């Protein structure tokens, strides 16, 4: 009887999704412990930073540091602090910044939108440019167009981010003043309200990330176009266009999805250089500063958010792969 059959057998994709969601939660939990331990292992703590040399103060005595540590709760045993933090997270309480005393949720919230917009626009462009050029070049493997795309990708990909960013500023902000060299976003407004500030940062990010995607997709596409089933399709007289769109495309895309996922995850918390050069008000640079100043609760909350975002992006990438290649679906997602 149908009703008696387990859901998993009937809906392999749903079972796969459920399994992946459970493992995602476990991964994020494990990440929280890892992040907490890593922060605890760093030399020095917020008490050192708060009482260290800055304009007019001076290094503090060990006694003053001990008092401050007790006040910040940094003198408690690590497991107690971890349990405390996780319990707070469960209540939706991220705590307060050790340096300014402002709520971590408010600090992250003020810039989350900016980071999501920059990451979203860059990711969308990356998918279009990376996959589009990769497929186009791969379908023309070893022809002039392919060589041009490959050489350009390799040259761009070998430039460090800050060089690319500065080059873009020089050319598109000063030689031809088309876009602002600096991304000032009025507080509380979305960067989408002044899209011109996104142009150069997005170009810089895509120029950094696209080359590896292009090369990956191109290689897959070239391989697929050379495979026996495509040759067979050609022999059957199917048009080249139909071969690409109906037969080659999906198989070329599946392996590129995880690579795209890693690039997109990086957009979320790792774009320090681009944020610094354009003074873009995103999360990445603050994260680095937070680590340097040992602002534990802030760094822990933000890295956990990054970890969650990474897990989510990879999950999406896997689902795309499963969608693209039917044989992954029928085998219940086991690869």
């Amino acid at each position, binding site marked *: 009887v149908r009703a008696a059959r387990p859901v998993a057998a009937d809906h392999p994709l749903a079972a796969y999704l459920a399994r992946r969601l459970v493992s995602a939660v476990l991964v994020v939990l494990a990440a929280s412990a890892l992040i907490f331990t890593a922060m605890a292992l760093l030399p020095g703590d917020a008490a050192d930073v708060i009482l260290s040399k800055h304009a*007019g103060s001076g290094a*503090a005595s060990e006694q003053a540091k001990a008092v401050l540590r007790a006040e910040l709760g940094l003198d408690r045993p690590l497991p107690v602090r971890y349990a405390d933090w996780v319990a707070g997270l469960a209540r939706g309480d991220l705590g307060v910044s050790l340096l300014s005393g402002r709520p971590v949720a408010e*600090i992250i919230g003020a810039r989350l939108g900016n980071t999501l917009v920059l990451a979203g626009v860059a990711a969308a462009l990356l998918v279009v440019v990376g996959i589009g050029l990769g497929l186009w070049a791969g379908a023309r493997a070893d022809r002039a167009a392919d060589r041009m795309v490959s050489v350009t990708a390799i040259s761009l990909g070998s430039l460090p981010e800050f060089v690319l960013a500065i080059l873009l500023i020089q050319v598109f902000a000063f030689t031809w003043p088309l876009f602002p060299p600096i991304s000032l976003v009025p507080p509380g407004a979305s960067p989408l309200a002044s899209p011109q500030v996104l142009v150069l940062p997005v170009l810089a990010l895509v120029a950094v990330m696209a080359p590896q995607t292009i090369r990956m997709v191109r290689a897959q596409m070239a391989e697929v176009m050379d495979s026996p089933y495509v040759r067979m399709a050609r022999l059957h007289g199917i048009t080249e266009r139909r071969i690409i769109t109906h037969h080659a495309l999906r198989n070329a895309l599946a392996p590129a999805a995880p690579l795209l996922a890693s690039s997109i995850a990086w957009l979320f918390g790792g774009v320090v250089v681009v944020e610094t050069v354009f003074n873009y008000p995103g999360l990445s640079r603050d994260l680095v500063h937070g680590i340097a*100043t040992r602002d534990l609760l802030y760094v822990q909350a933000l890295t956990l958010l990054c970890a969650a975002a990474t897990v989510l992006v990879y999950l999406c990438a896997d689902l795309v792969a499963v969608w693209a290649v039917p044989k992954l679906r029928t085998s219940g997602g086991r690869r």
Partner: protein
Amino acid sequence: MTDFDHPVRPSRRAILKGSLAGAAILGVPGLLAGCQPATSAPPAGPGGVRRGGNLRVVISGASTTDDVLDPHLAGSWGGGAVAKNVFDKLVAYNNDLTLRPRLAERLEPNADGTRWRIRLRHGVRWHDGKPLTPEDVLWSVRRILDPANKLPAAAGLKVVDLAASRKVDASTVELAMRTPIADLGALLAGWYVYVVQNGTTRFDKAHPPVGTGPFRFVDWAPGERTKLVRHDGYWELGRPYVDSVEILLAAEADARLNTFLAGQADIVHELSYVQAKTQRSNPQLTIHPSPVGTFHAFNMLTDRPPFNDRRVREALKLSVDRRKIVDSVFLGYGELGNDLYGKGAPMYAWSLPQRSYDPARARALLQAAGLEHLTVTLHTSEATPGFVQSALLFAEHAKAAGITVQVSKSAADSYWTDVYLKQPFTQTSWGSYALEWFYGQTLVSTAPSNETAWRRPDWDRRFATARGTMDPAARERRYLELQRELWEQGGNIIHSYAKWLDGISPQVGGFKAATVASDDWCSYREVWLS
């Protein structure tokens, strides 16, 4: 030089050098009245000044996590700029680190410098309309000194005995000192010592700062920008000239310059030396170097070998080619250091000879100490621009004296916590303040940042005597002797004073190049836009 401070400084000098011992009067009441024509509708103003407009400036600052509005806590450049324009100090530094009156019209010590009367300016109003009172001043000092608040200025003001201090009348406060102090003003002019309103404990969005300064706080995005508007009831007649100020933060020098070049800022603070050089020919950007710079030094812990031998310390001081460092690290935007703090400040020992680069003499000193072919490790980092380049140049220069300086580079973010004060040979850089402030921070035996392990009870005693000596000439002699000992035997190799560089657009008028942390530094009350 404005009409305002021009008459003040000569009069103060005259009084200090004259017979009025024990009464350092800062400024003359009613001085302002004759200087400025009454305010009138825009665009009229004194001396071609134009009123109105929104002034935009860009400077480095804290990040979203650690930016604060509390003027007693804001240690970043950007935080200091906000505090400067929202609040006022009792007295503040001129560019030469002499004092100018602000909320205090006069500071009057008793005969032995143990009690100081602060006469408050009349007619000063807070942004909420309340008048400035002695209670506000006492509250500000109490808040700074309260150990529970852990405020950085507590170290500077700890000479104040709050329990014995009091309000004298409606416009006079008397502060009691724990030890005689000849120049309380030098401490009251410190970076953080702003007057806040009686009873204020918090400064954030829910509790917006209320000051007496030329601009009112409107809004801020921490680590990003702060918006201020003109305070119409400001006590300096006619000031400020612009309607509003926007202070933008950018951590990186290129981002700051690009903000300016893109027309998003009228003033760019803190240009790099390379930028100043490349922008020299840009007609849209005028560069203003600060009159006095921040010092850059190598510090030796004088209680650790080989630096516990004064001949070694002198040999190392003679092995730095200061001119080369100023020319190639600061690209000429700097001055030679003479191993002494406070170049340009009152009591600075100008009479001690400038130490020169003399590797032959250094070699002889080391020979006498039996330490030829000395090898030392200098710990550097990118914590402050110029540190690493100076260290590498020093290593080159010292070769001629037979000294091997091994340069060890540490991570910038942990340099101040893990390396500085812990390794025997490190680097440091301090802004310009009064000598006694710096000595209290770094040179007395109990100093919190005793970066040269300079612990000499006799020197401490003589310093305490000097800072409590009311007769200016005698005080100057005592400070000279203290500095001679530091020059001969101290552990600081202060090789250069690097300038702070500001750039302004041609529309900006009334801008004054200023020493870091002085009254004019990042002050926008005199600035106007054409």
